[in-house]
């Protein structure tokens, strides 16, 4: 019984982390789907989202506002808006000017952008850890005499917010006009343009949506872990990228699935082996998938036209 409860606990932890990976991974996968490039500055957007959430929460708290719901909603909205503005700017500055050139050039440009954003946050906020208060302490406990499973309110919030964001995104992509235009662009950008679709705008929107979702993940993970520093974007970005590749880069359901699988794999490693091996397993998975199924779980193999 205890064995089972322990497993359940690790799965809950894994789903929590995994759903935030999925949120960040969507940004990678959408951008790749439309312009075929990996946005290596995306992890930094997540980091900026976390910082903005931290600033809004502590700022409002200092002004004496202590309504938890208000704090969370305000932090969510402001960090989504600021992160979106950064996503928009990254596309304009680092991607659009080099869109026609070789992939390597865009890659270097994105890495440069990533270094720039990291240091710009470091200058603004210092390089030391900042503490983010947990606005929703506590949770539920259930289980037997031996092991007790812990489900914190924060974990529930993470599930719920992630599910809502994913649902909203799925609806947007399948039903709205802009979502339709996004799909058209990911299939044939040149043709979409010649049918009157402003493809530059669609590309900008893709970066903006990805950034907004990364900011959601930033707020959630920031409150969950309780700390933020300018370097968190690197690892989170790599993990989310792994999740996107795992699920099949370019596929939105793939990013969701990849995030969850990665999160659970990490949590189980942490629970049964050692947390030291978490990253080993995560990137080991990346290597395996690239070796044996490079198009990912839900992706489609690219057929070279002859």
């Amino acid at each position, binding site marked *: 019984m205890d064995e089972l409860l322990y497993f359940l606990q690790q799965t809950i932890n894994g789903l929590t982390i995994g759903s935030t990976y999925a949120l960040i991974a969507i940004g990678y996968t959408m951008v790749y789907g439309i312009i075929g490039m990996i946005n290596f500055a995306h992890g930094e957007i997540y980091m900026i989202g976390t910082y903005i959430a931290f600033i809004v929460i502590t700022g409002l708290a200092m002004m004496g506002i202590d309504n938890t719901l208000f704090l969370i909603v305000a932090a969510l909205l402001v960090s989504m808006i600021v992160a979106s503005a950064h996503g928009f700017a990254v596309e304009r500055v680092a991607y659009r000017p080099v869109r026609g050139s070789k992939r390597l050039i865009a890659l270097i440009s994105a890495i440069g952008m990533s270094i720039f954003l990291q240091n710009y946050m470091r200058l603004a906020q210092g390089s030391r850890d900042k503490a983010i208060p947990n606005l929703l302490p506590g949770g539920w406990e259930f289980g037997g005499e031996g092991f007790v499973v812990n489900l914190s309110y924060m974990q529930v919030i993470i599930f719920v917010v992630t599910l809502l964001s994913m649902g909203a995104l799925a609806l947007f992509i399948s039903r*709205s*006009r*802009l979502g*339709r*235009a996004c*799909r*058209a662009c990911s*299939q*044939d950008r*040149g*043709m*979409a*343009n*010649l*049918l*009157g*679709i*402003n*493809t*530059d*705008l669609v590309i900008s929107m893709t970066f903006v949506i990805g950034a907004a979702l990364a900011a959601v993940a930033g707020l959630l993970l920031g409150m969950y872990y309780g700390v933020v520093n300018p370097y968190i974007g690197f690892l989170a970005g790599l993990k989310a990228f792994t999740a996107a590749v795992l699920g099949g880069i370019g596929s939105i359901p793939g990013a969701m699935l990849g995030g969850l699988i990665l999160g659970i794999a990490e949590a189980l490693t942490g629970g049964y082996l050692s947390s030291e091996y978490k990253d080993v397993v995560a990137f080991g998975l990346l290597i395996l998938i690239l070796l044996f199924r490079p198009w990912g779980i839900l992706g489609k193999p690219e057929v070279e036209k002859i």
Partner: protein
Amino acid sequence: MAESELLSVRGLSMRFGGLLAVDQVSMEVRLGEVVSLIGPNGAGKTTVFNCISGFYRPTSGEVLFKGRPMQRLPGFKIARAGMVRTFQNVRLFKEMTVIENLLVAQHMQAERNLLKGLLLTKGYRRREQEVMERAAHWLERVGLIDFANREAGNLAYGQQRRLEIARCMVTQPRLLMLDEPAAGLNPNETRDLNQMIVRLKQEEGITVLLIEHDMSLVMDISDRIYVVNQGKPLADGTPEQIQRNPEVIKAYLGEE
């Protein structure tokens, strides 16, 4: 410039590195005409199309549509001005449904209403309705209404070509540019295509610019024909004039 001129191309040239693919091509298309652009393989016909439709940026020359210069505009603005095209190969959004292909092509006016869309105003919903009705109307006309929710990539080849024309028509263009629409069609389908173009011209008043290798189709439906050879303009005139032109015969059949 005469009132009835819809498209006017002047001194159009396109250079790719050392290759001058199009050299000083000029042409006029008047309102309501069917004009064909013909020439041997590799003559530069498609390059001319690509320059006119904004797919390429011409090296030099002018493209005037309704009297306005187009050659510096991005493709989507040219499309919104009322000029749409097809490609030699089918370029449908294959993973979208048939009806979605027609909806997305009517995106043009949509993005200005982004905010209205979020608020679901009355005007927005009315426009959605119009967009849907227009899509259904054109599916009916090209005989694909029963396939509306099928994935476009699963249609038969001839159906895909018809869907492409429908997708152009829902944008309510003034000028329809077709790049080898009969390529790969069987004689029956080619005859249907012929009738469709004639009906579009008669019923919708659409102007058509056509690249085609099927000479019987070209001679049958064209009001005027331009011939290019090795990137240079060779001749232009009515189908009868072109058929009798010794230069054209030489270009197609080689010298005696």
